[in-house]
């Protein structure tokens, strides 16, 4: 009962807050060569940003990233979009992430979130989970799961964002 009351209060509290577009939480991640990377460093000179959560054990994630990679050159030329792929693999497989990324020839930035800190801060329940951010780092839209062709819808949104600027 008390818990319920607490929940209600929190609910009221959140109603009291005028809706704000979310920006990125600050979390420490690792780069593929073991260096620390603060998510406040995710930026792209005012152009759109895509952040995609994935893992080695997630086939649809890799299909999505393969699809991004096939068009990345073209997307970058047209809109300047930058992609960050955040691997949530834990220490059982973090060492295998860099070889897979290079082996697949992925051209975008890849970051490691070995204990799911960024995943939790971004409220990601399932992967793949992809966020689209505008140039100021505000989250514009997000999508979970990947089906063949879903990258086209995402890219339409990227184009709209790039044109707005």
């Amino acid at each position: 009962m008390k818990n319920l009351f607490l929940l209600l209060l929190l609910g009221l509290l959140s109603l009291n807050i005028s809706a704000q577009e979310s920006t990125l939480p600050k979390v420490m991640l690792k780069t593929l060569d073991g260096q620390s990377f603060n998510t406040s460093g995710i930026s792209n000179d005012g152009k759109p940003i895509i952040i995609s959560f994935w893992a080695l054990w997630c086939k649809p994630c890799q299909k999505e990233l393969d699809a991004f990679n096939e068009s990345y050159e073209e997307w970058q030329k047209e809109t300047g979009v930058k992609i960050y792929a955040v691997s949530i693999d834990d220490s059982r497989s973090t060492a295998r992430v860099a070889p897979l990324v290079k082996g697949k020839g992925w051209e975008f930035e890849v970051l490691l979130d070995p204990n799911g800190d960024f995943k939790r801060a971004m409220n990601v329940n399932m992967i793949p989970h992809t966020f689209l951010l505008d140039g100021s780092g505000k989250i514009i839209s997000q999508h979970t799961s990947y089906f063949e062709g879903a990258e086209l819808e995402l890219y339409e949104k990227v184009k709209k964002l790039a044109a707005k600027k």
Partner: protein
Amino acid sequence: MRKLLIIILGIFCLSTLYAQDLFNNATVNGSFQTDVQFYRPDATIGIYDSTIAGRKIGINGFGNMIFTLGKFKAGMRYEAFMTPIAGFDPRQEGNGFPYLWASYTSDLIEITAGNFYEQFGNGLIFRTYEEWTLGYDNSMNGMRVVIYPMKGLTLKGVYGSQRFFWQKFERNNRGIVRGADAELNLNDAVAGWESAPLRLTLGASAVSKYQRDADPIYNLPENVGAFSGRVNLGAGNFNFMTEYAYKINDPSALNNFIYHEGQAILSSLSYSQKGLGVVLQLKRVDNMSFKSDRAISANALDINFLPPINRTHAYSLTAKYPYATQPNGEMGLQFQVNYKIPKGSLLGGKYGTGIAFNYSQVNDIVRNQVNDTTSIGQEGTLGYTTDFFKVSDHIFFRDINFEIDKRINSKLKAMVQYMNLLYDIATIEGHTGEPAVEAHLAVADVTYKLSSKNALRVEAQGLWTKQDEGDWAALMAEYTIAPKWFVAVADQYNYGNPVKDHRNHYYTVSAGYTRESTRLALTFGRQSEGVVCVGGVCRQVPASSGLTLTLSTNF
């Protein structure tokens, strides 16, 4: 509790009256998920009314919320397992707020009070994490401080007790965990090294567990210390990482109360360039189970994480026999090559061809008698002596797999995989006396694009073995309309089961709708019994039959 409510009420009133501006800068985000399972009796796969035992519906659900105001953050997660879905620990049954926290973060310091997750290095002596879908959560309840005293240096300190299902911490009902970690990145810390060709990171940690010794026979260590050191060295396309961990004697239910010390080492060496990645990983674990209650052997209250380094498979049959780390002792090796045959070459074709090869093997360690009168692993003794570099002939697990993926034309994509498996089911699943499973597996996964948004995907799998449940075949067809709809039908057929009556079909029909980050999926059919391993923990899923509904959203 009442005080807390008054404070929150106070904040609420204040915010309404005076602090509109302050709260205009605040944000709230969160997520929800509910999994509902409706069971039905299914005599062919051995599910009777008595098996369900009245629990016709299982529901697992959580709601997560994070409140941010400048440098201040607070969060909570509410969970309700009522009753837990089949396969979850019955002790999960309950509801409440297992995860409540508040934190303050500046450039110099980060303080968290309440529940938190943390990992030191690779987690060999400390890792708390949650895997909600598996019902695993060993979060700390206490405090954490992270300090950044200078560029390149990170110091962490933690203390508290760990989550044990819904049981509240009380004096002496489980251990207390304290730990500290330091990580130094020399390229950031030393002036002039920023762009040095070598990238060097060093780390060290110490963890101590306090648990009262109430044992009537043995004199047990009340404070168990564990220490670890790690190095990460990058040079050009090469990267080398190693971590070594040591734990003082820690007699427990899991190691049969022996006074042996614990050791673990994890190393990897990798080479990556565009189109090619190679990695070799080695590990040795000796008596390294570390729990905040020495009396339990269940999958809970782990202080550390001993990563299984073999490949985690993603198809139902290739994942049927997954390896789980043997904390009492193992030596493992893992080797992987990823190569992309370039576009335009003879084998690469128009789009290039991806190749992956993976080999992993895990053996037991060699144990020798301490002296002539003590048997190996005898309770209350030093247990055994062991040679660090000797590998036992006893193979726990071996997986050799080879994978090719290729885009054939603008519409057709295919992936084929072969896997050869050796799985010591007696050790890994505790099926004493059963012979090791030797199996061949093959998978084909083909996607055909019907239009820019419509696609058909077909997955065919085979598992051939003379042991355990014999041969299996699986077929799945999935139709997707990107980015919102999917419908799939699948069947797993245990056609080679040595017991004729057990040659069952496990069919499922599923459909789902996703909009933005809201996803609703329905599955109807039979789930075959098996081990589900995700994120380092494994769970035995019993055969089930019925309807499953999953709803997930994020805001």
